[in-house]
């Protein structure tokens, strides 16, 4: 067995192990950390597959963005150190059965299919090429999905702000202070405006 194969199996074991722990641990913060490890393992897998760009994007978006977001939401919604309720035995059993059957089915399909291996062709991912193709308007260009995704991101951003704002309008105390100035309470704001006037 070659060294690269050994590395692959190590990475695979790490990803799956961390993934299993992420869905089974009953401490929510640990679950997020295991998810993080699983995602980092997937980034390592991308490095192994020599798609460094995807690996870097994976780390930036998933680790730097999504997991931090998840951890923040845990900070905001969870009481420290409380364990989650244990799922009922019946629940676990049937979930496990469904998952195992699904796994068996797909594994069967994969092993039966016999992919046409096209070895020995170089696989190069030049960052410049990704950029070129992303913005090209020719037949194999990706400008349309790129724009669509940009619109989606914009919509998501607006949506997040709207969702977060809705609750705040009625609740003045929780509102963020207006930019640059600090709101203390009513008599303060009134007197500062007097002073400015």
């Amino acid at each position, binding site marked *: 067995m070659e060294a690269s194969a050994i590395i692959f199996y190590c990475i695979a074991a790490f990803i799956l192990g961390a993934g299993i722990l992420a869905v089974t641990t009953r401490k929510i913060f640990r679950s997020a950390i295991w998810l993080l490890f699983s995602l980092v393992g997937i980034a390592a897998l991308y490095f192994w597959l020599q798609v460094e760009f995807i690996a*870097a994007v994976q*780390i*930036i978006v998933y680790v730097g963005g999504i997991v931090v977001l998840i951890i*923040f939401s845990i900070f905001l919604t969870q009481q*420290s150190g409380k364990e989650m309720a244990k799922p009922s035995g019946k629940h676990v059993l049937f979930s496990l059965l469904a998952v195992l059957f699904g796994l068996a089915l797909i594994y069967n399909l994969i092993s039966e299919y016999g992919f046409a291996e096209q070895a020995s062709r170089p696989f190069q991912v030049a*960052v410049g090429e990704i950029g070129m193709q992303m913005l090209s308007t020719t037949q194999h260009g990706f400008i349309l999905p790129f724009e669509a995704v940009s619109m989606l991101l914009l919509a998501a951003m607006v949506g997040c702000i709207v969702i977060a704002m809705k609750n705040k309008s009625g609740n003045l105390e929780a509102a963020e202070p207006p*930019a640059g100035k600090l709101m203390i309470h009513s008599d303060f704001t009134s007197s500062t405006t007097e002073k400015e006037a």
Partner: protein
Amino acid sequence: MFSLEGITGTVQNWLLNTFNPQVALLIECAIVILLAISLFAVLGLVLVLMERKVAAHIQIRLGPNRVGPGGMFQTVADTVKLIMKEGLTPDLADKFLFNLAPFVVMIVAMLLLAPIAFAKNFQIWDINIGVLYVSAVSSLSVIGILMAGWASNNKYSLLGAMRSGAQIVSYELSAGLAILSIVVLTGSLQISDIIASQQDGWWLFKGHIPVIIAFVIFLIAVTAETNRAPFDLAEAESELTAGFHTEYSGMKFALFFLAEYINIFIVCAIGATLFLGGWMPLHIGNWEGFNHVMDYIPSSVWFFGKTFFLIFLIMWFRWTFPRLRVDQLLNLEWKYLLPISLFNLLLVTLIAILGWHF
């Protein structure tokens, strides 16, 4: 003679001649890890001493001057003290994560060392997405801080971790945009390409005012990203005692402390590479004679000189300015740095397209 160029080649040749390739690779890995760890130790010692000396001289004091000549071994003594101290773990802490957090921070700092070019032909891993790798991996360090803050089961730690999370995530944007402006000018993410593009002058001088603005924004953003004053809200000692590492002591605290300095070194090294030409000596256009004289100074000296200059700047900030408040910190990013750097990136792109740079 002081240049590191050639040493690596000799070592590799010798290894390849002596052992078979697999073993040689393993040995090289071991050597690199060993070198990285010793570099960490040396950098930690030097930077801590430097910080204390800079602080002292700014504050009209002498600083450490008892242990060794000029206090040179003060950090060694401190390290020994920290090692001897008992590493306490709070009773209700999540012990696994509590003990893991300092190592996460440390390993991230270690991974960041990989793509940095210390001298001509002296680089551990010249990855083709160099600067993207750096900004990706550096975003991992926030996880360690969040972990420490949560696992300590201390409210000060939790507040510090939340502040630090918000801070690092938002300042990454303007740091990324500042880095992007150089990437736009160079047309490559690879560190060696970026350095090679500064053959006839550093980007700071070649790129007119927009690059200078990008440089300033980069400095501010990395100061914030490394949790240094005036952005040290995560450990603001007058507000949160010590922020996310309130509960840490002994060696685990030392790891956080060391990682902070290593991170400063790394971001300054990246800044020096992007804006000041890395190990590239000061070259000015076509002045052959001048360029030739500059080439006599070894490349490693150039690299470390530039890096330490930037580190000095960051220390200078720390000992001059008061700390910002948490909402002002986010205002600074979203109201000032981000719009300015977005506009600036547009200007840089214009310069790159029109070929206005030297």
